[in-house]
Structure formats: structure tokens, C-alpha cells
């Protein structure tokens, strides 16, 4: 990995107390409750969660299904109003921002909805510029340059004139990421971006994220099931279980055998990789 030196320096910084001015994203004691009926007890609760992240940092949210990962991500995105607490992004409370102001600061990559009508990759990427135009503006030279750069940054220039319906899953994920980059966000959120990708494309995507976070100083929050990829690429890990954040910190501090076995209900071992990052091996009974 080319950025080993850089990430290990980010590593040591993690242990030091953070200066408040460094912090870009601050999740402060947010909680949430879903219920079918306000009179009834909530079906799902997210307990108070806190963590902070700086520019250029990658935070991975891990946890089993229904542990509240996506809910937490939606609250960070400002799409859900937390029951208590707040999320601050450069001093703004995310859920109180107007949609346009929010889209200029926060980009979300989520499971794609099916396209109703055919669209070119470049049209798709230009959608990321929507928050910067007035309602009836036509895209200008500047938007086109930004969209081109976004495609180039994810290595997808060659896909520009292809139809979205004709490209592979991995290529599509790159174009969707390019659309998020075209928003020129401070905060890049990804909801299970590696789902449906083969292992090569998964590594590719996370390496791209690592590079982009370093180059463009994005703060990245990614929800994922890939424990080993998260350990390899994340600066911080938030481990959720039944709506409760069990531990927040560096992968090495969160990846404890007992803890992971208890959360994921499967026997496993944790070993230290050559670069100091933990690695999880499943112990499958024959």
C-alpha cells in the first residue's frame, strides 16, 4: 500500500488528545428511536453515540445487521433528526441545514435506486452539481471541469460517454462516487459501498477512498460489513451492537477477540498484521 507511511503517522496522532479546532465532524450524544406508533414502545433505539473526526480521516461504522449503522449514518447526513444530541459539521448542525446547503457539504453514496430512464455516466456525475445551481441553470464550463475531474479522480474518465445501464457493478460504484465528489463535500458518507462488489473491486474502492481522503481532505464515514478492509483502511472504528456503540477508537483498540465474538456471534481470532493493523480470521468448524 502506497500510503502506509502516511496512515501510520495519522495513527500515532490518534492517540494524542484532539485540539477542538482540528475536529471537522463531531457526533455528540445522538440517539434515535423508531416506532410504528408514537404511543408504543420504540421498535428500535439507537443509544447516545459520540465520536469525532478530522479532515482526511476515515471512520468505519461496523456492526451486525440491525445494529443501527445506517440509522447513525442518516443522522450524520442530516436526513434524520436525532431524538437527542446533535451532529456538528464545521460548526453547523447537520439536520437543520437546508437541503441545498447540506448537499454542498455532505455527499452520500448509498445503495443505488434503479434508473427509470437511460442516462449517460456524465449526466449522472453532473447531478452532483445540482446544489450549486439555481433551479433553471444550465451547467457551465466550471461544472463540466469539476465533473471531468471527479471522473478522473476515481479512474473512470473512459466511462464518461457510456450508458449507466451498460457498465459493471464496480464501474457503476465508481461513477456514483464521482457524482459524490462533484458535490465538493467536506464529508463523504458511504452506506455499504462494497456490497455486490468482488474482492478486487472492494479493495480498489477502499484504496481510492483512502487516497481521496488524503488528497482532498474529505472526512469519510463508511458503513461496512468488511471487518478486514475496515481494519486496513480506517483511522477510527465505531462498533455498534443493538443500537449501542460498544467501542470507538483505532482498529487495534476495537478489534478484541472477545468483543467481536460477542457482537458477531461467531468464533474468530484476531492477529496483528505486518503493518500493525489487526486482522480477523473466522474459525469455521468443519
Amino acid at each position, binding site marked *: 500500500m502506497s500510503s502506509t507511511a502516511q496512515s501510520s503517522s495519522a495513527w500515532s496522532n490518534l492517540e494524542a488528545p484532539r485540539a477542538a479546532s482540528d475536529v471537522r465532524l463531531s457526533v455528540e450524544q445522538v440517539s434515535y428511536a423508531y416506532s410504528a406508533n408514537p404511543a408504543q414502545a420504540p421498535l428500535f433505539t439507537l443509544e447516545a453515540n459520540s465520536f469525532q473526526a478530522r479532515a482526511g480521516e476515515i471512520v468505519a461504522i461496523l456492526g451486525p445487521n440491525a445494529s443501527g449503522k445506517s440509522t447513525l449514518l442518516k443522522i450524520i447526513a442530516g436526513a434524520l433528526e436525532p431524538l437527542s444530541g446533535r451532529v456538528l459539521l464545521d460548526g453547523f448542525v447537520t439536520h437543520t441545514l437546508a*437541503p441545498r446547503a447540506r448537499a454542498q457539504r455532505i455527499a452520500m453514496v*448509498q445503495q443505488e435506486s434503479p*434508473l427509470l430512464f437511460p442516462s449517460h455516466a456524465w449526466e449522472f456525475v453532473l447531478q452532483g452539481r445540482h446544489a450549486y445551481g439555481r433551479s433553471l441553470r444550465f451547467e457551465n464550463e466550471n461544472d463540466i471541469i469539476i*465533473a471531468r475531474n471527479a471522473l478522473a479522480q476515481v479512474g473512470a474518465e473512459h466511462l464518461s460517454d457510456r450508458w449507466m445501464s451498460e457498465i459493471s457493478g464496480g464501474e457503476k460504484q465508481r461513477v456514483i462516487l464521482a457524482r459524490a465528489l462533484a458535490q465538493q463535500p467536506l464529508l463523504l458518507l458511504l452506506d455499504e459501498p462494497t456490497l455486490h462488489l468482488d474482492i478486487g473491486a472492494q479493495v480498489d474502492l477502499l484504496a481510492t477512498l483512502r487516497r481521496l481522503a488524503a488528497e482532498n481532505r474529505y472526512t469519510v464515514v463508511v458503513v461496512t460489513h468488511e471487518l478486514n478492509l475496515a481494519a486496513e483502511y480506517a483511522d477510527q472504528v465505531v462498533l455498534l451492537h443493538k443500537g449501542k456503540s460498544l467501542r470507538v477508537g483505532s482498529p487495534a483498540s476495537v478489534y478484541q477477540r472477545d468483543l467481536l465474538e460477542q457482537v458477531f456471534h461467531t468464533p474468530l481470532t484476531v492477529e496483528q498484521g505486518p503493518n500493525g493493523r489487526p486482522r480477523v480470521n473466522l474459525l469455521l468448524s468443519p
Partner: protein
Amino acid sequence: MRPLTLQRLLFQCSILAVILFVVVVIALRLGAVQISLYGLGHDLISVLLRQTNQLSSDYAMIVIEIRLPRILLAIVVGASLAVAGTSFQALLRNPLADPYVLGVSMGAALGAILALIAEPHLALPVWLAALFTPLGAFLGAAGAIAAVYFLGLRDGQIDSGTLLLAGIISSSFLSAIIMFLLTTLTGRDFRGMAFWLMGDLSSSLQSSLRWVLGVGFMVATGAIYTTAADLNLLLAGEKEAMHLGVDVRRVRLVVYIAASILTGLAVSVSGAIGYVGLLVPHVMRLLFGSDHRILIPTAAFGGAIAVVIADTLARTVVAPSELPVGAMTALVGAPLFIYLLRRRIA
């Protein structure tokens, strides 16, 4: 990369405007009485110069007083239906949505009929009396689309098949109520109403209603057009649109009200003309792409062209008798609809 520019938009709209002009000229000539191109030009210029006393032929009356208003009505109705159809397709994320298929036209028709029945009993001031039918049609349209929307929900999501079925069921239910109401009317009214229900452009409008129609069309279409870029993103899904900076609730509200106004106005003056709102946006998408900034104006021109042609055929193929224009659009539209449906499933 070839993003939409204002020049391209204006160029493509002007092509359609020329086609519309040619169609209008042909439509003015055709009919039970044939009129020469020279006579037609002379008459129209006379009217434009307000020298109505110099009209060249005895037939000028037919052209200016009968055919021209009817063609203008066809233009506004066609454009309204096509823009409403385009909006419903984007709003409901369903390429088969249109005011007729969704039962919105029948809702508007019921609203208009209720207004017509109620009006003589209400002693309204004159200005309100003229507005009363379109208002009833608008409320009927808005009520119908709200009902169909909620019937089409499944687990909080719009389900394409359920939505269309809900539209068809609502449409037949509303028709039954309309039939019940019509039988309470006297015989002569019944025939006129039944004809109107099938779509009919032959009725002459009061001038106040013409103003309501024209202004309403401009305002509602303008309102929808301000959301054109948002609609492009809304097609990608509401959640995604929100994260890209679209105020989804505002856009939904604006488009919902404006599309109901367009449908209500069109139905209150011309009855339920089917398939225009469905097929015109499709054809325009094939020709010009699915960007709503170009789709909405081209659909307006396309709808106008389609309804002028359909109405011209409706009043000429069985001349001196007439077909309802809705029968004409259904004859062409229904098979095309089936074709699109099959292609979508395949």
C-alpha cells in the same frame, strides 16, 4: 460530455413550433368547407390588423369564429395534458403514469359535473360562476391523484403495478358515479355530457373561461418548469434527490398542485382526452432525451401538435358528422400503450 445548453433548447423548441404552425394551417383549411391557402392568409392578416370588415370570403366566419378558437383550445388542452403527464411520470417515478390512466381525468370530470349540477342552485356572482367548473375539476383531479397515490403505496413505497391498478379501479369507480349523476339529467344534456366525457373540443367557451384557461396553463406550466432540474434527480429516487440538494417536499407539492390544475383545466373545457399525457412525453424522450429542462417544453409542443391533429381528424373523417377527439386519441393511443407496456416487461 454534452450538457444541455439554452441554444439547443431553443433550437429544438423552434423546430417543434414550426411543425405546430404547419399543422395549425392545415387544420384551418380542412373541414366540411375547404378554404384556399391564399384566402386563409388574407383572412388571418386581416384579423391581426383588426380589419375584420375586409374579410375576403363568406367562409372567413367559419375559419375565424369556429375553427381558430377550436384549434387554440386544442393547443392549450394538448399542451396541458402532456405537461401534466410528464409531471406525473416524474413525481410517481412511473413511466406509464398519465392523468387518464391514473383516473385523475375522471376525478376532474366528476368534480366538473358536480360543479355544473350545483352551480344553478348557488346564486354565485358572475365571475365566480365562470370559474366554478374549472375549480371543481381541479379539486376532483387533486382528490383523485391523492387517493390513487395512497392506494398505490405498499409498505410505504410506491409500487408501480399497484399504482396503475389503483388508477384503473378509481377510474372505473368514478365513471360509475358520473354515469349515475348523468342519468339524473334530462335527455338532451345526457348526450352532450356523454360526448364531453369522451373528450370534445367543439364547445365554445365564454371569454372569461378562455382567460382562466390561458393564464392557468402559463402559471402551472411555469411552476412545473422551475422544478425541471429537481425532477431529473427525483427520477433517481427521493432519498438520492434529497442528498443531492433537492427540497423533495416542496417539489412534490408544487408539481402535485400544478399538474392537478393543468388536468382540471383541460378536463373542464374538453372532457377526458386519453393517452396524450402518456404517449407524448415518451415520444419526446425518444427524440430529445429525458432531461426535464427540455422534456417539459417539447412535451408541451408535442401535446399541442398531437391534439390539433387528432381533433382535425375527429371532425373530418366522418364529416359532416363528428367523432369525440378522445375516441381518436384512444384509437391510436391504446395500442401504443400496450406496446410500451410489453416492451417494459420484456
